[in-house]
């Protein structure tokens, strides 16, 4: 692509630049004042975001391809490492940079310590995520996947004086690294089968291949990404890690890192495997995993009392919904999914930052301990409840727009059950978040009892800061307001859904990808179809979901007033819920067993 070569070289500049800044911060950070590290990290995130804003329009029009050190393909053979930026990958990198900026601003005053490890690790984490989305070959994907993983393990265990934080980080590290090695096994088998690592070259080699080996490699390579994407039964690490990681770090975990797992799966599927023997089985697999994940995440979400753990399960439930949309393999569902994930990142990020403010102010993130304590902070409560309603998909927030677009596409694809499931997931998870808000900020309901009470308490959380600040500093309330505002603006942004549609069509266009990377005739991307926006059904269903969420929250808070007959019906489910809760045992060994079973089951689905 000579025409956009200067823009394409920005891909390499960003990835390498971020790695260098991270290396610099971590090596000489200890000799620098804390504020300098703050500014350097924020500057790096800002520069990365700026570069991505510059690249986004041309990437949407025409894929950006950069060959490291000029090792271009010759005669269809590739040896060099390619970086590829299309609308979706540049968009995700931009999202990561924006969330990083919000998290770094929030931590300006949030962390009391003068340590600069945090800043170096955060930028290393951003470098890993940016490299991962731009990687044009499977091995580079693995390397950046691990880079992002190592930074994430360290960030999870940042409060090294807190044993639960260490425990969460160890579980996260063991499960994710083992999954990455299983992926690497798949990469090696793929290389043995084809002699290529580049995604485009693999796509050409595997086109029309129906051998069982292709199915095996597909499952093995996807394992790593599905684990990162917290798809059930690979999700167990996520709630442990989110419950203990510092709140600003959770913003990035929930908002973009987990989504990157699904991005990796989708990228592999559409760039490499969509023309092989696993094409249709892969869709079935995505749909089945999506339903399982959505159900598991939703039920577990409602049973939590630890706010961050509750939000983590809500993320898992949303990942299930996203998987179902991937499984439908329709361009408009993917476009809706992109908008949905964007809106979700903003709102979930705001909720995690709010949980950080709650911890800072009251010294706990436990729903029951804090009952009624939040009545002295009306603004905090208002922001929390608005974010909870936005999570349900209330218009005019971006979550609602994405949810509406996805539901529309799924209904058009003939899967009405998926639309119903989406509404149920949104209503129940947002209902759980609202229930917490009603107890803490409005002081509603009696002291709790029963199954909910048995959950992990949020009192044990070690404090990252001196608690009991009277006023929330602007550097902490500002990012919350900015993220909520962004969630609101996304719902009204003109052209967002049209651009998402164009990015989705570009993403799913396998021959266009191959042509752009290996050279050759590139067919112009077909103009986007009828790009939807807000229409009457999506507004109505958005409000219906929000009403359902409010109703569920009310039932949960005033459970003692529910007629005894109805309560007895609900009590039947209690033993099953206890078993479900016990599967989340907090032991890495158990999670490894679940992962092996999951890989075997996925293999069975794809091979049979």
């Amino acid at each position, binding site marked *: 692509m000579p025409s956009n070569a200067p823009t394409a070289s920005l891909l390499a500049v960003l990835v390498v630049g971020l790695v260098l800044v991270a290396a610099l911060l971590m090596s000489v950070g200890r000799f620098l004042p804390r504020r300098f590290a703050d500014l350097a990290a924020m500057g790096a995130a800002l520069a990365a975001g700026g570069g991505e804003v510059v690249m986004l329009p041309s990437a949407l029009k025409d894929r950006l391809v950069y060959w490291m050190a000029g090792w271009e393909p010759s005669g269809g053979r590739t040896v060099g490492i390619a970086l590829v930026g299309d609308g979706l990958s540049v968009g995700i990198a931009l999202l990561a940079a924006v969330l990083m900026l919000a998290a770094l601003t929030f931590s300006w005053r949030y962390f009391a310590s003068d340590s600069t490890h945090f800043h170096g690790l955060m930028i290393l984490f951003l470098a890993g995520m940016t490299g991962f989305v731009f990687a044009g070959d499977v091995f580079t994907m693995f390397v950046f996947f691990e880079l992002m*993983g*190592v930074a994430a393990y360290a960030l999870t*265990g940042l409060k090294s004086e807190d044993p639960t934080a260490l425990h*969460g980080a160890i579980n996260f*590290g063991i499960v994710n690294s*083992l999954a990455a090695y299983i992926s690497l096994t798949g990469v*090696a088998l793929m290389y043995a089968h084809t002699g290529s690592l580049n995604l485009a070259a693999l796509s050409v080699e595997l086109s029309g291949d129906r051998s069982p080996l292709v199915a095996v490699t597909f499952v093995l390579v996807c394992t790593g990404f599905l684990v990162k994407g917290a798809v059930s039964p690979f999700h167990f690490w996520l709630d442990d890690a989110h*419950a203990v990681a510092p709140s600003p770090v959770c913003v990035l975990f929930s908002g973009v890192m987990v989504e990157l797992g699904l991005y990796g799966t989708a990228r592999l599927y559409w760039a490499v495997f969509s023309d092989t023997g696993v094409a249709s089985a892969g869709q079935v697999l995505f749909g089945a995993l999506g339903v399982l994940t959505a159900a598991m995440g939703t039920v577990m979400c409602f049973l939590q009392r630890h706010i961050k753990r509750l939000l983590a399960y809500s993320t898992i439930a949303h990942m299930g919904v996203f998987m179902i949309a991937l499984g439908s393999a329709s361009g408009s569902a993917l476009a809706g999914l992109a908008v949905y994930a964007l809106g979700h990142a903003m709102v979930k990020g705001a909720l995690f930052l709010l949980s950080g403010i709650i911890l800072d102010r009251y010294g706990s993130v436990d729903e029951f301990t804090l009952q009624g304590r939040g009545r002295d902070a009306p603004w905090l409560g208002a922001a929390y409840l608005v974010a909870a309603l936005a999570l349900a998909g209330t218009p005019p927030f971006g979550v609602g727009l994405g949810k509406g677009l996805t539901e529309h596409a799924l209904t058009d694809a003939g899967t009405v059950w998926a639309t119903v499931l989406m509404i149920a997931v949104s209503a129940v998870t947002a209902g759980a978040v609202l229930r917490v808000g009603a107890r803490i900020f409005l002081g509603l309901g009696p002291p709790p009892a029963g199954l909910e009470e048995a959950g992990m308490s949020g009192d044990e959380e070690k404090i990252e800061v001196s608690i009991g600040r009277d006023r929330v500093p602007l550097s902490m309330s500002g990012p919350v307001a900015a993220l909520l505002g962004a969630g609101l603006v996304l719902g009204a942004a003109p052209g967002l859904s049209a651009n998402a549609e164009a990015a989705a069509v570009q993403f799913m266009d396998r021959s266009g990808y191959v042509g752009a990377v290996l050279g050759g005739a590139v067919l112009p991307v077909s103009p986007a179809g009828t790009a939807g926006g807000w229409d009457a059904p999506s507004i109505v269903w958005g409000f219906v979901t929000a009403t359902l969420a409010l109703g569920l929250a009310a039932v949960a808070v005033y459970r003692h007033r529910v007629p005894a007959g109805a309560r007895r019906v609900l009590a039947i489910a209690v033993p099953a819920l206890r078993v479900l809760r016990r599967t*989340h045992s907090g032991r890495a060994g158990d999670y490894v067993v679940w992962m092996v079973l999951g890989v075997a089951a996925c293999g069975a689905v794809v091979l049979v």
Partner: protein
Amino acid sequence: MTYYAYFVAGAVMLLGIAGLATSRNLVHAVVCLSVAQSATYILLIAVGYQSGAVAPIFGAQTGRDTPVVDPVVQALALTDIVVSAAVTSMLLALVVQMAKRRRVVDPDHLGPLEG
């Protein structure tokens, strides 16, 4: 004969996973993770192996027509070893911290992270 290395790689991976699943000590678990990763080294090197081929260093004795083993997988294995060093040291550091704080390295006695 050629399948032997693949068999060994699979067996080592499964042994590592089995060790992880039944581990009663976090240091042991991290080492089991390294064992599982060693399987990927064996697999990668086996993929590039050719009977009778020499190392891919072209010099006076190695010409254009001399069979050499595949250098790409060797580069991958080398990168993989670097990744392993980073992951293993990171996890061991976390385990050391855990042993310091709670004086426990048995994953069954770590505490309340469940539900």
